[in-house]
């Protein structure tokens, strides 16, 4: 039997791991006027998926595969450093580690996981997500999908608080980009083997800039 239900658990926005406090750069993008309507929101989401989303998905998928090895820790450690190298914004590195730590805290609070308990204190979020998928019997493709799903649903849900848009339109945008998430997940899988130094590095430089500016704001609804 193929595990499936656990994937829904990890992809659920209600997963109590603190993700709701983040907008994935949307808040600052709305503030600067780059995202202002349903159309520009959809472009933002799709752009995020194709760049950051793909990278996160590849790291999640590979961490999922690694979690089934006899000793995944050395590979997870390399992946952690590789993801650092692909995240130029210090604020974004910090956010990723904070989210990773929160997911880690949740997972270790849910059950005893010898592997997770040996992870360093604040690993990047997609590594924890991927490892968790592996531990719950899911496949690397599932982990990639979960990472991609999260990379767009977080900002889409934040959108209804940040701009004048109703939730039907945000979800219509999510539904329209769903096929491209499927394609991106397949592409992420191509990086499950081979040298970890060759992991993808698709970037959205403006998201990095936005993350840095957002971190300096004294008034904001979302933490990132």
């Amino acid at each position, binding site marked *: 039997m193929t595990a499936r239900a656990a994937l829904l658990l990890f992809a659920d926005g209600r997963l109590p791991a603190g993700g*709701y406090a983040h*907008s994935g750069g949307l808040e600052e993008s709305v503030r600067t006027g780059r995202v202002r309507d349903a159309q520009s929101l959809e472009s933002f989401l799709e752009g995020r998926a194709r760049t950051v989303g793909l990278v996160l998905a590849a790291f999640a998928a590979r961490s999922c595969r690694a979690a089934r090895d006899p000793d995944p820790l050395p590979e997870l450690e390399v992946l952690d450093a590789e993801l650092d190298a692909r995240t130029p914004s210090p604020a974004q590195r910090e956010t990723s580690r904070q989210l990773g730590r929160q997911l880690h805290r949740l997972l270790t609070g849910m059950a005893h996981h010898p592997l997770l308990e040996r992870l360093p204190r604040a690993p990047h979020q997609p590594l924890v997500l991927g490892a968790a998928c592996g531990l719950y019997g899911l496949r690397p493709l599932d982990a990639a999908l979960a990472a991609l799903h999260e990379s767009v649903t977080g900002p889409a849900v934040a959108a209804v608080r940040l701009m004048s848009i109703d939730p039907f339109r945000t979800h219509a945008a999510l539904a329209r980009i769903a096929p491209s998430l499927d394609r991106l997940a397949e592409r992420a899988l191509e990086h499950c083997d081979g040298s970890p130094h060759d992991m993808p590095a698709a970037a959205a430089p403006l998201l990095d800039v936005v993350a840095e500016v957002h971190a300096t704001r004294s008034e904001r609804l979302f933490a990132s």
Partner: protein
Amino acid sequence: MPRRALRLGVAGPVGTGKSSLIATVCRNMAAELEIGVVTNDIYTDEDARFLRASGVLSAARIRAVETGACPHTAIRDDITMNLIAVEDMERDVGPLDLVLVESGGDNLTATFSPGLVDAQVFVLDVAGGGDVVRKGGPGIARADLLAVNKVDLAPYVDVDVDRMVAEGAAARGGAPVLALSRHRPETVDELCAWIRRLAGDHAAGRHTPTDPGAPAHHHHAHVRAT
């Protein structure tokens, strides 16, 4: 079980005096208890800044959780950020005796998760009017302590404090209600005495947490306020 601090939640609507109550407790009890504070704000770290500015605790003992405009979620549905903030602080500056967690205060229905705090105070103020107590909600009905704050203002807002307290006690089946004002030292002493007793019970393993969010299974109308 390793000894950890008593975790006391402070909930209630915005402006009722939660941050002030916490500052008052710190000012009056810092000599006898090692205290830390975690705040939950709607907009970044306003409350943490207020407490740091008040100088009642060192900056390392005041942590802010950013709640993504969902302060009620952060104390009940998804407590992970708060739990990490409390655990980090205990590890960094501990051992502590008391960690006060302030809620972001967005509505009457928000209560703390039993996974986050051992006990909670619900704060109302007289300026909100006497009706609020009657309107009720889980925090008003079942928090460990209901504080009716700013009683010094009662004459200016035409509120009968004794009546508000009596109605609070009735809505709570006799559980404690405290008329409080930081300008009335005897009421502050009562608050500190209540916390002291709770911290003592917690340290001795005698405190059994109750969850105001859960429906009461039986009524304790016969239980008298202590």
